[in-house]
C-alpha cells in the first residue's frame, strides 16, 4: 500500500504542475486575443500620452510585445522558473519585489480565515445535524443561507460599521497603527516579523487590524462548510459504526461530537482548497474596504493603472498558491481515507 501512496503522490504533483503551465498558456492566449493595441500600452507604460513611433518601438521591445505569442509564453515561463516575473511598468521595479511585499499580507488573513471558517462550519454543522428538524437546525440553516448569499463586501461593511465605527472595539482600517516603527522585515509577514523581533506593541496592533478582515472572510465562507458538514454528519450518524458505539454505551453527546464528527469532517478536507481560493478572491473586496494593502488592494490598483504585468503576475501567483492548496488537500485526503489512493 505504501508504494500505492507514492504513485498517488507523484501523479497528483505532476497534475498540479501541468495545470499551472496550462493556466499560464491559456492566460497568454486569452490576453493575446483580447489585448489592446500596443499603442495604448506604450502610452501608459512610457507615461507619455503622445508617444512617438520610436518610443513605441522601445516599449514594444522592452516588454516583448513585438515577438510572436509562443515566444512570449516560453520567455515568460523560462523567467518564471528563475523567479523573474519581469519589471512592473508602472512602479518601475521588479514585480517580484511588489508581490513579496503584498502576497504575504494577504496570506496572513486568508489562511487564518480558511481555518476559522472550517472550525466554525464544522461545529455549526454538527450542532444543526444533531438537532435536526428542531428550531436550532432551522436557525443555523437560515444563518448559512444568509451568509452564503451575501456578497463578501456586504459582510465586511457590516462588520466595519458595527464593530469598528459604532462599538469602537477595533480599528476600522489599515494594517497596523502607522505611528509604530516596523520591526526589521525578516519574513515578509508583518505578524511574524513583530514576533521574531519581540516587538509586542507592533504585534498586537497588527493582530487587532487583522481581526475584522479575517472574520469577514471566514463568515463569508462558513455557510458552505456548515452545509456540507451537516449533510455529512447526518449520513454518518445513521452509519452502523455510530449505532454500535451507542449500543456499547457511549453517551449520545460523545458519539456525535467525538466519533461521528471526526469521520464526517473528511469531506471538508477537499473543500479546504476551494475555501482558500474563495478567501483569496474575497480578499479583493475585503482589502478594499479595510484599506488593507495586500494582494487584493494591489490587484485593484493595477487594474486602475492598466498594469498588465502586475495583474498577470498576481494571477499566476494566486493560481500557484490555490493549486498548491489543492494538492495539499488531496494528499491529506489520501492519508485520511486510503480508499481514494486506489481510485486516484
Amino acid at each position, binding site marked *: 500500500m505504501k508504494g500505492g501512496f507514492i504513485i498517488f503522490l507523484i501523479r497528483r504533483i505532476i497534475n498540479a504542475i*501541468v*495545470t499551472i503551465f*496550462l*493556466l499560464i498558456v*491559456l*492566460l497568454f492566449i*486569452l*490576453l493575446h486575443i*483580447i*489585448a*489592446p493595441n500596443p499603442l495604448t500600452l506604450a502610452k501608459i507604460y512610457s507615461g507619455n500620452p503622445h508617444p512617438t513611433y520610436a518610443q513605441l518601438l522601445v516599449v514594444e521591445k522592452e516588454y516583448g510585445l513585438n515577438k510572436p505569442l509562443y515566444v512570449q509564453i516560453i520567455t515568460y515561463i523560462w523567467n518564471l522558473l528563475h523567479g523573474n516575473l519581469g519589471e512592473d511598468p508602472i512602479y518601475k521595479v521588479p514585480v517580484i519585489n511588489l508581490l513579496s511585499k503584498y502576497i504575504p499580507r494577504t496570506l496572513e488573513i486568508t489562511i487564518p480565515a480558511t481555518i476559522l471558517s472550517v472550525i466554525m462550519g464544522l461545529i455549526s454543522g454538527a450542532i444543526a445535524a444533531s438537532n435536526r428538524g428542531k428550531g436550532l437546525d432551522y436557525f443555523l440553516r437560515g444563518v448559512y*443561507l*444568509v451568509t*452564503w*448569499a*451575501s*456578497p*463578501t*463586501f*456586504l459582510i465586511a*461593511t*457590516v462588520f*466595519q*460599521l458595527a464593530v469598528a*465605527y*459604532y462599538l469602537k472595539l477595533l480599528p476600522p482600517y489599515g494594517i497596523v497603527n502607522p505611528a509604530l516603527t516596523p520591526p526589521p522585515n525578516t519574513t515578509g509577514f508583518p505578524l511574524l516579523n513583530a514576533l521574531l523581533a519581540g516587538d509586542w506593541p507592533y504585534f498586537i496592533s497588527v493582530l487587532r487590524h487583522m481581526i475584522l478582515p479575517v472574520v469577514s472572510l471566514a463568515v463569508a465562507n462558513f455557510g*458552505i462548510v456548515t*452545509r*456540507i458538514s451537516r*449533510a455529512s454528519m447526518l449520513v454518518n450518524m445513521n452509519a452502523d459504526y455510530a449505532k454500535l458505539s451507542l449500543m456499547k454505551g457511549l453517551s449520545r453527546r460523545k458519539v456525535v461530537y467525538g466519533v461521528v464528527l471526526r469521520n464526517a469532517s473528511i469531506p471538508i478536507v477537499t473543500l479546504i482548497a476551494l475555501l482558500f*481560493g*474563495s478567501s*483569496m*478572491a474575497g480578499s*479583493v*473586496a475585503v482589502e*478594499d*474596504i479595510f484599506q488593507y494593502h495586500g494582494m487584493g488592494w494591489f*490587484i*485593484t490598483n*493595477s*487594474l*486602475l493603472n*492598466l*498594469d*498588465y504585468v502586475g*495583474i*498577470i503576475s498576481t*494571477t499566476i501567483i*494566486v*493560481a500557484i498558491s*490555490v*493549486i498548491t492548496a*489543492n494538492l495539499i488537500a488531496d494528499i491529506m485526503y489520501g492519508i485520511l481515507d486510503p480508499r481514494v489512493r486506489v481510485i486516484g
Partner: protein
Amino acid sequence: MASVKDYKTILKMLVKEPAGLTGLIIVSAFLIWSLIQGSLELISIYTKNPKYSYMLLPHNPFAINPALALHPPTLAYLMGTNGEGEDILSRILYAIPRDAFVAIVVVFSSIVIGAVIGILSGYIGGWLDEIFMRITDAFLSLPALILVIAISVPLKANYFGVILGLSIVWWPTYARLFRGQVLEVKNADYVLSASIYNISKIRLFYKYIFLNVIDPILAYATLDLGNVILTYSTLAFIGIGVTPPIPELGAMASNGLSGLPEAWWWPLFPGLTILLIVMGFSLLGDRIQEILMGEVMY
C-alpha cells in the same frame, strides 16, 4: 428523474413548501421587474426620451440634488439618498435589469459551451476527453473572480466586456456536469439503440443525450444565476464593468463606503438587495434540485 415537461408538478411541489415559495416569489419579482424596467429603458433609448425609463420609479435616479444629500431613509426616500442627493431606492430599481441580463447571458452561454465540450468529452472520450478536461481543470483551479479580473484589464472592462469575460471563465463547471451526466447515460440501451439507426450525430446528441441529462443541470443553473450576480457585483464593487453615472449595485455599495460611518444606508441597501436576490435563487435552486433528484447536491 422527472422530465422538464412535468413543470406543473414541479411548480405544485415548490409552492407547497415555505422555502420554495419564498424563492419563487423573490426570483419572479426580480425577473418580472427586470423585464418591465428593461423594456422601459429600451423604449426610452429608442424614443430618445429619458422620461420613460423612470416613470415607474419613485424618483428620477439621476436627479442630483445637493440640498437632499445624505438624507436618511424616510417615507419619501425609503432607502435614503446618496452623497449627491440621488434617491437610492430608485437607483437600485434602475440597476436591477442589468444584473438580470448579465446572469442570464452568462449562464445561458455557459450551458451552451459546457454542453458542447462536456458531451463531446464524455461521449468520445480518449485524448479529446483528456485535453478538454485538462483545460477545464485549469480554469477551475482559479477563482472565477480572479480570472475575470486578469482578462478584464485589456478589455478596459466595460459592461459588455465583463459579460464576455464572465462567459469565458464560467463554463467549466457546466462542462464537468455534462460530462458526468453523459458518462452515466452513454451506455444506456436507448442511446445505443438510437445510435444503431441511421440518425445524424447532432440529432443523437440533442434528442437522446442532451434532453436526458439537462434536468439536474437546469436545477444547478437556477442556483448559479445567483452566483453570477454575486461575482458580477463584486467586479462592479472594485470598479470593473461600471459606466458612471449609470447605477450598478456593487458600485453603489463601493461608493457608499465614503459615507461611513454616518450614512449607513448608502452602502448597505444596495448590498442587501444583492443578498435578497441571490438568496431567492439559492432557495429556488435547492428546492428544484430536491424535487428532481430527491436530494440537495451539497
